[in-house]
């Protein structure tokens, strides 16, 4: 129940507020302190674009979190309602280790300055 309220609050925050500079939405602490992009950087902005009807822009902000979104939403629903078993508990071990590798690789690649990798880096909302 608490989690559901928290989720609704997050959805409302992302719908009403504009992430980026001078906003009440918190920035990524890792990026704020080190300047590096973490694998999750841009997720708030991506959700903002998604809620406002720009799925392609959302993928531009954070391709990883948008790819994981359907799975996360389903599993979150499964965990909260406890009606059916989660996908994550039925996944084969190798796919979990692959996911871990993808998350780490995504975090490294999006920090590389250069033509193909900058596509993975988030852009700022002005």
């Amino acid at each position: 129940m608490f989690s559901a309220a928290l989720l609704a609050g997050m959805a409302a925050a992302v719908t009403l507020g504009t992430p980026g500079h001078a906003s009440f939405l918190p920035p990524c602490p890792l990026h704020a302190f080190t300047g590096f992009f973490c694998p999750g950087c841009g997720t708030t902005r991506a959700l903002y674009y998604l809620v406002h009807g720009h799925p392609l822009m959302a993928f531009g902000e954070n391709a990883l979190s948008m790819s994981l979104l359907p799975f996360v939403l389903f599993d979150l629903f499964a965990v909260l309602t406890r009606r059916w078993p989660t996908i994550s508990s039925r996944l084969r071990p190798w796919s979990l280790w692959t996911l871990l590798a993808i998350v780490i690789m995504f975090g490294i690649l999006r920090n590389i300055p250069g033509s193909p990798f900058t596509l993975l880096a988030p852009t700022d909302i002005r």
Partner: protein
Amino acid sequence: VYCTKCGTNNDANATTCAQCGNALHPPAFGTPVTPPTPPLPPAQSFPTPPPPQQYQQAPIAQAYTQPPATAAQVPNYLVQAILVTLFCCLPFGIASIIYASQVNTKLAVGDIAGAMAASKQAKLFAWIGFGASAVVIGCYLLFLLLVMMGAIASGTHVH
């Protein structure tokens, strides 16, 4: 007793699950949870002594003492781990994903006790991550409040 529907650990004498209300059945007598694979006797020329009687009774004793746990009942907290990784605290999230992967890896080889231990660790790191995000967001909002109050006090307009 672990609920067969949602996996919540209930009191041993509970009749319904505290979490989902599902009727709890006591673990069936004599069904081994982890059928121990008997070590294959190596090809030897001399006859091997018969295994001790105690070993034969081990599976039944195990079924009595250990809660029945199947793949669906050892949560790996992967969703929480991903959320922590993406939204706030990368190190805790990564640690949680590693333990989540270990849960499924250990379940796949039948190591239920190991999977339970990994599950506990995954949960712990996910909660540390959630706690850290709460602290970070709290500090940020406090900082924002102070900046706004400072701006109001000095009479400048905030955008």
